[in-house]
């Protein structure tokens, strides 16, 4: 049983060049790797930090799972990248990031890290959805309605191919 190695890159304040460099540096760690990219999408849903699917794929990244934690990337960008054989996840709405509360990202990292060769990528991604439901419910029970709404929105807006 081999657990998946999960890398997270917070590209929020990086330039396109810096992002390409960061992606190129991890390109060789591929087969059992999941990559989470945090940053901004675009209204059209075709770009991540002003990079198109072609520009991202040109960095030769081949993770098993690529997760865009950014606005609207689930609309088109994930489909274009998934078409090249990478299981890709994104969101079809605005992703609201609370920098003081990293529990939503940690939930992705934890479920992906526990993915082994017997678990399909899609099952692993669905486990994150379940984890987010529990997280949102707990926020709700504790009357943190704004946090509950943000977390549940993440969960409902998630799309993968």
């Amino acid at each position: 049983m081999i657990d998946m190695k999960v890398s997270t890159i917070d590209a929020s304040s990086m330039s396109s060049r810096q992002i390409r460099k960061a992606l190129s540096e991890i390109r060789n760690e591929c087969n059992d790797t999941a990559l989470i990219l945090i940053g901004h999408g675009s209204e059209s849903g075709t770009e991540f930090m002003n990079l198109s699917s072609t520009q991202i794929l040109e960095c030769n990244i081949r993770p098993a799972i690529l997760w865009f934690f950014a606005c609207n990337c689930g609309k088109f960008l994930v489909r274009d990248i998934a078409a090249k054989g990478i299981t890709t996840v994104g969101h079809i709405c605005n992703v609201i990031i609370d920098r003081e509360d990293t529990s939503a990202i940690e939930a992705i990292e934890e479920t992906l890290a526990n993915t082994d060769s017997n678990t399909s990528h899609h099952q692993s991604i669905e486990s994150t959805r379940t984890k987010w439901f529990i997280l949102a419910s707990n926020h709700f029970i504790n009357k943190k309605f704004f946090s509950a709404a943000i977390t549940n929105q993440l969960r409902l807006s998630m799309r993968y191919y």
Partner: protein
Amino acid sequence: MPNNDALPYKILIFDDQIGIDSWGEVTATQIRQEGFDVTHVSDWTTATEFISSRHVDIVVVDLDLNIRETGFDLLKIIRERNQALPVILATGNETYLDRPIAGYVDALASGPVMFYSKNSEVNFTDQIIEAANRVDPVRRSLSLMSEAGMGEKEFEIDGISYTVDELLISSRRTDELIRGLRESLQALILEMSSNAHRNL
């Protein structure tokens, strides 16, 4: 239900009449018994300061304030900041009650507004409960965060930082974001309740 909430809904009553027999005081006592947190104010300055600096879930304002301003003027001030706050416009003045509906269209179009006749036999507590059902839970949560000193807390949305206080101010962008979050919260409530039923 609002009354079972750990944080009772806060209601501001602005009625110029004072004294224990005044409509504002009697009504405040009546709805306090239902578990609401009620403040009765009787002058314009206190009312406007309260609205701009404190968390409030529902505003009840007398239309006829016996000053230059009316309840409609307070409604305008409320709407500049918050288009979702439920407001009950109350009056016992026949002049207001006899006015044609055309005189109220702007008020009705501005957001959740209810009218109440002080001469009515309708129980005012029922009106408050109805207004409480219209409270936006997402805005309420943000407003409570702001009152608890977290107004400067930032959230990042597509590369732009918004503080809690900025999210509370109505604009096309913030209203759209909050509408999305409200729908997400409603979906969560439905799913939690459906799970609870399944586990019974």
